[in-house]
């Protein structure tokens, strides 16, 4: 039997959050954390968590698993469980709506700030804006982000200033559009980032890189943004 300790909070019923322990029979199999949650849901129908694709594509089930952020659906028990105990908490820093469900409003507001769409004022060609294979290659390691918020909520700079620091997820996407050969708003995008908070609150501790379930490197992207700002200003 696996002991699962889960963060519980129902704002209409509970005065404050608490941890609740469950015993789960995994049948000795190395199942995913999401499978454990689904087994728990049978024990307690009131348990709330987000999930959708169950294969690491939608980014719904980001949560804090034994102290590290990750996606429950692609995290096998063998990679996180020690002493037969699993501790599940919501992603840190953002307000809790109920149990493991968080309010991601602040996260999306930061994403919105970086204008996550192509800006190109030149006349549209008849069929499509072409890219060379080399230009397209620059977007590898950037476009794969699924906005699960594991990185931003693992970042202390985002914890202290979620309203002013864009956060690793937003900055990875900021660079994704800065690096895109089809985008013509480079100057406008960079001008919006040159303040002491938006980019420069990153102190390079790389928690984002450690937790990213897709193996992406936001710190490297932030470094590229810094270099672009530097080139522009000197």
């Amino acid at each position, binding site marked *: 039997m696996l002991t699962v300790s889960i963060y519980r909070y129902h704002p209409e019923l509970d005065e404050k959050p608490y941890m609740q322990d469950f015993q789960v029979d995994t049948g000795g199999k190395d199942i995913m954390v999401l499978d454990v949650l689904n087994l728990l849901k049978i024990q307690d129908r009131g348990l709330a968590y987000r999930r959708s694709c169950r294969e690491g594509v939608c980014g719904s089930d980001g949560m804090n698993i034994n102290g590290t952020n990750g996606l429950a659906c692609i995290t096998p028990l063998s990679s996180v469980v020690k002493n037969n105990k699993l501790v599940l908490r919501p992603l840190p820093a953002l307000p809790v709506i109920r149990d493991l469900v968080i309010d991601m409003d602040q996260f999306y507001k930061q994403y919105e700030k970086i204008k996550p769409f192509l800006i190109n004022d030149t006349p549209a060609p008849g069929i499509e804006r072409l890219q060379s294979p080399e230009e397209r290659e620059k977007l590898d390691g950037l476009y794969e982000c699924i906005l699960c918020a594991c990185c931003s909520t693992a970042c202390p700079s985002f914890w*202290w*200033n979620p309203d002013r620091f864009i956060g690793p997820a937003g900055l990875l996407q900021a660079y994704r559009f800065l690096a895109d050969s089809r985008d013509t708003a480079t100057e406008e995008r960079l001008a919006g980032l040159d*303040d*002491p908070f938006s980019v420069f609150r990153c102190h390079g501790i790389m928690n984002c890189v450690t937790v990213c379930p897709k193996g992406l490197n936001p710190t490297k992207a932030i470094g590229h943004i810094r270099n672009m700002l530097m080139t522009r*200003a000197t």
Partner: protein
Amino acid sequence: MVTTVTSYGRSGLSDWLVQRASAVILAVYSIFMVVYLLLNPLIDFAQWNSLFSGTSMRIFSLMALLSLGAHCWIGLWSVSTDYLKHFAVRFVFQMVIGLLMFIYTIWGVQLLWGL
């Protein structure tokens, strides 16, 4: 774009650059002092005094002193904006740090140049 008026250079890039450049100067100065003291373990007042009476050493020390002021201001400003959430507390902290940096810098100049 987030507007700030109490940060060192208003621009994130400028603060970042000053922080790094001042760190290099402080590192070089610290290494120099440690090596000098290791090579001269029995240093007396006359030797110490002659070291700091040379113009190049005074320039080097003043550069380190100004770097220390800028470095502390940027660093502590960051700390205050991370941890001090109440506007009045944060503003007073920033002003006290600014004032201290100013006093220490002027005091340091006075000591270095024997004014």
